[in-house]
């Protein structure tokens, strides 16, 4: 299945012929009777896992089944922030594995995912923030992850719209900057992985909802019951974010997850004004500017569990108030649209990428409010786990059993930050 490669020359020649020579980027597939492995969930993590299964583990008969359309869930709903400045060794290893893959992803996939290491700046507003961020910076340095301290004047120089006056409720006292952090085009990540996986023979089956997980006499996975019929396989990788509890319950597996709506919003498009990503966990502001010119703003989760893919307006308002104080220039901007995604949150706010008690059933979940940044790394180690039936050293700590054994990767509580 040779795909047209993308290059400057192709763009030029296609432009001269009225852009009519492009082919579909992936095939429209009917499910076959059986596969070596099936990934449930056609988001970035799932499509990426299928891609790495085909590319690095040489499985030849792989399918991705998706209830809706690919990239229509949280992959297309997040605020595209990428960073790896996590405190604990386990987290730093996982997220920095992803960041290293981001750096070469466009070349690897021959698809421009628009990874832009424009710098992620996390603002400190209190003495506690300063101490925590400096601790992060030292911990990161020990783990080979870049992160540096900026004074508030340096923060202002890095992000000119920032208000560093001391007359606001939570003045900016300084910031931690990860220069390798930044953004990527979220849709392109799904499309790029889909195209590259398809080129390696992966069947991408959209509009195919899983209705049951079939088990043999020993309890091992032997296939899936779907809205498009029965599909046989001995390996199923579940990568469905907010609906993980529902899919896993089909095999009797309970997971420590709760699903919450997480909202985001964008402004009307404006000329380039915002050169980086700014996060403030203390006042809950997450903001960057897309290449289209929209300010992309992340709001918080709603208080209660829900599957509605929407949330309350007051949750957005909370974030907007903080942004108006930090960036007074944006006060008169209009917001264009807002939306929600359903995120599955674990008790320690760290993901689960693991085998389950059911032979042949693997799960990649619990990314909570911060899964996009990890997409390539998560997909890569999940593919390894599925292919070898054992975790990659990087995801070995991210088990289900850690909750029973008291081995939490308690990043959220330790760092007092959102993800």
């Amino acid at each position: 299945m040779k795909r047209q490669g993308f290059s400057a020359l192709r763009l030029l020649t296609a432009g001269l012929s009225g852009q009519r020579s492009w082919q579909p980027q992936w095939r429209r597939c009917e499910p076959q009777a059986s596969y070596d492995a099936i990934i449930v969930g056609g988001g970035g993590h799932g499509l990426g896992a299928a891609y790495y299964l085909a590319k690095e583990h040489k499985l030849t008969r792989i399918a991705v089944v998706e209830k809706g359309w690919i990239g229509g869930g949280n992959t297309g709903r997040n605020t595209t922030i990428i960073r790896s400045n996590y405190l604990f060794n386990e987290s730093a290893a996982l997220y920095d594995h992803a960041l290293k893959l981001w750096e070469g992803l466009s070349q690897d996939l021959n698809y421009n995912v628009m990874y832009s290491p424009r710098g992620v700046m996390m603002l400190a507003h209190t003495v506690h923030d300063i101490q925590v961020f400096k601790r992060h910076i030292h911990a990161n340095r020990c783990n080979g992850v870049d992160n540096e301290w900026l004074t508030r004047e340096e923060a202002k120089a890095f992000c000119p719209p920032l208000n560093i006056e001391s007359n606001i409720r939570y003045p900016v006292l300084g910031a931690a900057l990860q220069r390798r952090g930044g953004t990527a085009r979220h849709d392109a990540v799904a499309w790029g992985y889909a195209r590259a996986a398809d080129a390696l023979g992966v069947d991408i089956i959209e509009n195919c909802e899983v209705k049951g997980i079939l088990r043999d006499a020993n309890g091992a996975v032997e296939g899936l019951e779907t809205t498009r019929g029965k599909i046989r396989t001995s390996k199923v990788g579940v990568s469905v974010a907010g609906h993980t509890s529902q899919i896993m319950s089909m095999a009797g597996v309970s997971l420590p997850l709760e699903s919450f709506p997480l909202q985001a919003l964008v402004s009307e498009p404006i000329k380039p004004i915002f050169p980086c990503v700014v996060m403030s966990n203390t006042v809950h502001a997450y903001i960057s500017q897309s290449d289209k010119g929209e300010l992309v703003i992340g709001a918080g989760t709603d208080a209660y569990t829900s599957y509605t893919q929407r949330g309350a307006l007051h949750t957005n308002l909370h974030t907007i108030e903080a942004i108006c104080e930090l960036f007074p220039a944006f006060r008169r901007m209009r917001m264009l649209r807002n939306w929600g995604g359903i995120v599955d949150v674990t008790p320690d706010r760290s993901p689960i990428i693991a085998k389950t008690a059911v032979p042949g059933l693997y799960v990649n979940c619990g990314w909570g409010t911060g899964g996009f940044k990890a997409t390539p790394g998560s997909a890569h180690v999940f593919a390894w786990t599925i292919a070898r039936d054992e975790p990659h050293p990087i995801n070995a700590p991210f088990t289900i059993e850690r909750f029973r054994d008291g081995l939490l990767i308690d990043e959220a509580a330790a760092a007092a930050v959102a993800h």
Partner: protein
Amino acid sequence: MLLIHCPYCGDRPELEFSYGGQAHIARPTEPQTLSDGQWASYLYLRSNTRGIHAERWRHLRGCARFFNALRDTTNDRILATYRVGEQPPAVAETPP
């Protein structure tokens, strides 16, 4: 924003309330007899129901009392609220 019926104070906006998670989880009376797995289940496993979910709310900025609610997590409609100690009332699932 949800309009929540506090069983003590009546209808109030969601901002007056805090969410308390899944309802009707009883703390084990003899924790020392539990295995690690059972204790982890008590601490961490939640139903994460898609559909009618029994959950705790607290009227924090009102009477400050806890109560329970039945909410359909597919459309966020609160179908009933009831006092702590009462049984959840029978409700019909609403279309999304």
